[in-house]
């Protein structure tokens, strides 16, 4: 796949499956959400089996259970040994129920952490595949500390002494996604979405109606292209014209090609440099002004290698309000009672 220039805020489509002029932006964005959620889309195990060899799945968190919504193990990408970890949805109703629709309980994140530590101990890089509506919000999940498990997993990944590449392959839903999506380089498949809350959740809180999910999806800039422009992901990996669900093998091939190059770059770096750059990657995220006296933390003038790699890959950072203008939905009714509960 050829490099592309930094994405504009228009959702980027390599070979547009849906003619843009036939659909409003809202419909266009929603089509992405639906593609990201397509049950036939290849999930972690399908992608790993297509792109890797010698797949060995490992099981269990060594604490409570083995969460079928989170999978992981060892495999080889063109000969490179990696630890893979990812959310797992099912392609059929039964499997989807068994996989809890890709919504992990705490034991899923604790299994992921166990595998991250294994990768560190062995000096093997990690690749994660992110595809969840979010962590499971039920009572059992809360009782066993799903929030704690997410926080710990994020923290562990931030300091993990081995390279990490993360790929948003489908739904990147909230903290339950980020818990395994901290990386030196973060990729997304073209039809993947990434958001702080599901569009439905956002709509029901901010619009007070789940029917506004499409508006919420647009407002949150959840498409891969927009996330790249925000600097949250570093590169969009194009899907075949018909979408990943129709061409899983070709999707896996493209992904593998990207991962191979990136892993080789990262593995060659001293781990201390990687850790500093990974820290900086997240440390810089956010948009704010400082109207007070300058108290800036000193940052290196020259970007680190992982940054340079991300820039080379076509990522951008910064405040995009101006560029984002055209996508603004019109302001709805002016009820001012901010219901600010973010829901997982």
């Amino acid at each position, binding site marked *: 796949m050829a490099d592309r220039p930094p994405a504009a805020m228009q959702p980027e489509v390599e070979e547009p499956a849906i003619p843009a002029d036939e659909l409003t932006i809202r419909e266009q964005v929603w089509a992405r959400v639906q593609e990201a959620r397509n049950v036939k889309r290849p999930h972690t195990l399908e992608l790993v089996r297509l792109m890797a060899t010698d797949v060995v799945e490992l099981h269990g968190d060594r604490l409570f259970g083995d969460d079928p919504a989170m999978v992981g193990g060892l495999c080889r990408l063109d000969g490179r040994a990696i630890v893979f970890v990812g959310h797992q949805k099912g392609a059929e109703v039964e499997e989807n129920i068994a996989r809890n629709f890709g919504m992990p309980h705490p034991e899923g994140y604790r299994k992921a952490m166990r595998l991250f530590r294994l990768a560190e101990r062995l000096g093997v890089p990690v690749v994660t595949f992110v595809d969840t509506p*979010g962590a499971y919000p039920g009572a059992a999940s809360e009782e066993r500390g799903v929030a704690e498990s997410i926080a710990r997993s994020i923290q562990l990944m931030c300091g993990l002494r081995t390279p990490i590449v993360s790929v948003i392959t489908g739904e990147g839903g909230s903290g339950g996604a980020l818990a395994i999506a901290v990386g030196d380089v973060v990729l997304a498949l073209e039809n993947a979405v990434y958001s702080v809350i599901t569009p439905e959740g956002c709509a029901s809180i901010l619009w007070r109606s789940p029917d506004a999910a499409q508006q919420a999806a647009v407002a949150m800039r959840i498409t891969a292209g927009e996330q790249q422009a925000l600097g949250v992901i570093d590169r969009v990996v194009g899907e075949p014209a018909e979408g990943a669900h129709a061409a899983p093998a070709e999707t896996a091939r493209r992904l593998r090609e990207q991962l191979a190059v990136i892993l080789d770059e990262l593995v060659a770096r001293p781990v201390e440099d990687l850790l500093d750059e990974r820290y900086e990657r997240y440390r810089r995220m956010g948009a704010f002004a400082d109207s007070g006296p300058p108290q800036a933390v000193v940052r290196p003038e020259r970007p680190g290698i992982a940054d340079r790699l991300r820039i080379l890959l076509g990522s951008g950072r910064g405040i995009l309000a101006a560029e984002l203008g055209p996508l603004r939905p019109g302001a709805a009714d002016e009820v001012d009672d901010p219901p600010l509960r973010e829901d997982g």
Partner: protein
Amino acid sequence: MPIKLPFRPRGRNLPPDLWTKCPACAEMLYNKQLEKNLRVCTRCGHHFRLRVDARLAQLLDHETFEERDAGLESLDPLGFVDQKPYPERLTAARQATGIREAAMWGLGTLGGHRVAICVMDFAFMGGSMGSVVGEKVARAAETALAERLPLIIVSSSGGARMQEGTLALMQLAKTCAALGRLGEAGVPYISVMTDPTTGGVFASYAALGDVNLAEPKALIGFAGARVSAGTIAETLPEGFQSAEFLFQHGFVDRVVPRAALRDALVGLLAYLRPRPVPRPATAGNGSAGNGRLPGPLAALLDPLAGQEARRG
């Protein structure tokens, strides 16, 4: 926009209520009395939410708070509009609360212990965490590390701020990363969870204290109860997502009534001191290391010098 910081008297532009009805026991409480009682119901012990100024005033030694990064203000990176544009919400929140953002941080002393402290204010857009809150938490942690001061964060938040999209989500990583470095350096961190501590705030810094304290009956949970009870067909257990529930399940060290919170923190700070920076290997006593005993110990153990170690 004129903002007096940090301690602007609250409620100036609200109708001057003299009485507040306790939502827990329905008692009518005289406001002056309520304030004097740290906004805890004198009848049933219900903990009303505290504004940031009152919280800092309760916890810190008198007039020791030096705010840092007071000028940080949210932008609108997504051009986010729901029922009104995000910038309008921000402006309204600033005017209603008299503060610039949902968190304030700085340095101060607590029972004589110098600390870095960050306090959230639910009154500002539900205490939601956007880029500024995340940045303040990270700066507080980085400063605590640089100056080797214990860090205290008092959370009160509905979670990540949806209007900043994934940039708000990324604050989970930013804050967890900064706290990770703090912990590795042996600088302690106390998390105080107050009503409510939910969503992405609970799923990042609030959960990660070396010691986690919580106020009685505070709502602490990951998913919104609407989600848990609505989306998922499930009966919720008694006391679900309360401070006491979290204690019972091992995520909170102590549930501390507000009146005892300052003393509890002082008590902990006497212990939670940053680990001494290790002396360089070559420093000082030339005879240390590699089985060679320094003078005093060698003298103590001299009677044993001829005794052989027995092996099992």
